[in-house]
């Protein structure tokens, strides 16, 4: 098997006496959707922040695309192709849809310190931006102000911005959160295709979506990964049933 795109080893983080992440190992391979599930307070968000670089671990390492990125900032990791979407949409709300994706393309290209160009007329950036918008189906609202978008459209836009980053892997924090049944269904179909472009580490509460999409699932409980396996393995795992589904394993 080839090396994983994302390789997390021995990640530990504690806040005071609380161990939020305990000795976590995690791999994300090309072409897969690896779902990370766990009850509330299991430390999913902390783990995502450790992987994206927003938090520094006490011990452990994060390797991305064959490189040790443990010491890099969020921004540097993003430039290496770690594309993140947020649990609560995190966009430039005063900007148009197009400006948000152009910002992504610009950030990826890296030449933000240009003072006299016309960034919204840059054909190279617009091409990347429009391609990303078309892929998520937002090309018709490209001139809309982001704050005027529906919740579902904002989620799509987050993915579009991630796409402009030439991602080598996606880190998606609850992309289905707050979407209606139809919206979830739509996004689910989209993510199903997206895995072939770059693998996805999917943090998600929606169990139907997780079971439908994931190639592998890791279960996080009290900061620790108690099981990793295929959908069927996880479904049948008594420890998972007890810890996560709140049922006693008889």
């Amino acid at each position, binding site marked *: 098997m080839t090396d994983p795109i994302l390789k997390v080893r021995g990640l530990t983080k504690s806040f005071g006496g609380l161990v939020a992440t305990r000795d976590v190992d995690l791999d994300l391979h090309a072409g897969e959707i690896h779902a990370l599930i766990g009850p509330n307070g299991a430390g999913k968000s902390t783990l995502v922040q450790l992987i994206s670089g927003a938090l520094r671990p006490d011990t452990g390492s994060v390797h991305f695309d064959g490189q040790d990125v443990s010491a890099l*900032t*969020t*921004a*540097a990791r*993003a*430039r290496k192709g770690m*594309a*993140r979407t*947020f649990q609560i949409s*995190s*966009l*430039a*709300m*005063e*900007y*148009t849809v*197009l*400006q948000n994706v*152009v*910002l*992504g393309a*610009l*950030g*990826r290209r*890296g*030449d*933000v*310190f*240009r*003072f*006299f*160009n*016309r*960034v*919204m*007329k840059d054909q190279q950036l617009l091409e990347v931006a429009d391609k990303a918008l078309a892929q998520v189906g937002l090309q018709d609202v490209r*001139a809309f*102000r982001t704050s005027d978008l529906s919740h579902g459209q904002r989620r799509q836009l987050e993915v579009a*911005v991630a796409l*402009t*980053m030439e991602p080598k892997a996606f880190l998606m924090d609850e992309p289905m959160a707050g979407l209606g049944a139809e919206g979830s269904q739509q996004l689910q179909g989209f993510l199903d295709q997206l895995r072939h472009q770059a693998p996805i580490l999917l943090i998600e509460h929606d169990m139907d979506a997780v079971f439908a999409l994931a190639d592998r699932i890791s279960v996080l409980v009290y900061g620790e990964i108690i099981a990793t396996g295929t959908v069927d393995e996880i479904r049948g795992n008594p420890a998972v049933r007890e810890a996560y589904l709140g049922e006693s394993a008889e």
Partner: protein
Amino acid sequence: MTRESFLNAVLMGFLLVVPLAAWALDEPFIITLTTRAVIFAIAGVGLNLALGFGGLVSFGHAAFFGLGGYAMGILAYHAQTYTPLMDWPFVIEGTKSMLVIWPVAIVASGLAALAIGALSLRTSGVYFIMITLAFGQMFFYFTISWSAYGGEDGLSIYVRNSFPGLNTMDPIQFFAICYGVLVLVLAGVQRLAHASFGLALRAARQNEERLQAVGQVPYRLYLTAFAISGAITGLAGALFADLNRFVSPSMLSWQTSGEIMVFVILGGVGRVYGPVAGAALFILLEHTLGGLSPYWHVYLGAILLGVVLFARGGIFGLLAGREVAHD
């Protein structure tokens, strides 16, 4: 033509017509008043770059305004007393040429902004406001105790500095210089707002997390914006000192910082031409209300309160609506 660009044109036209009419009617005081507004506008446009585009509420911009003023004052003082600025290890003479004074003012205040910004930008929110205020006060007290250049009394310059081909002592000609500088600064800031830097900077103000997620570091953008902002305000300071032929520590007082902020807030935070409207309105109020009562600041305060409570976008928000995305 959008409503905003129409408003920009009206505003710039107004600032041109008023002094020309005053010139025709031989009212030099009105010309000087408009010149004051134009110079304040330049200072405001400078602050707006940090405050409006970067969301950096600097309460220390008087330091840059004053530095520009002292750059002009010191150079001109040495020129008029025929003493060198320094004679070791090499001789630096004073000068009365605006074309030399301006770059000195720009570089001095830009470098000061770079240093102050590098330290202050490690904080944010209220702490940023307080630390910029502290730096501003530090410069203020330094000038007060700087007896070589007049200390508390400041420095007087006998004649305005020179500009090739113009008589700067003629109010309308000096106005023309300041107006020209304002137009250039506005054009530059307008370009910058639509450039890569502007897109990224304004994104940082809206959402730092977003900017980092696309691989960029807000701090560097903020620091660059702060330095350019300080440099522009410094240039305004040099012109202001030239207008009055006088520079004193009052240019560096925290009230000055507050006034520059008022121009930006009155006009419309983050609108390129906002501070022009704000400064013009401020001067208009100062002139009309100031004639009614020496306590005119009370009314200004009430108006400011109204703007902050009911018209967040200032004059531009009120008249031009919310900002239209520019492609």
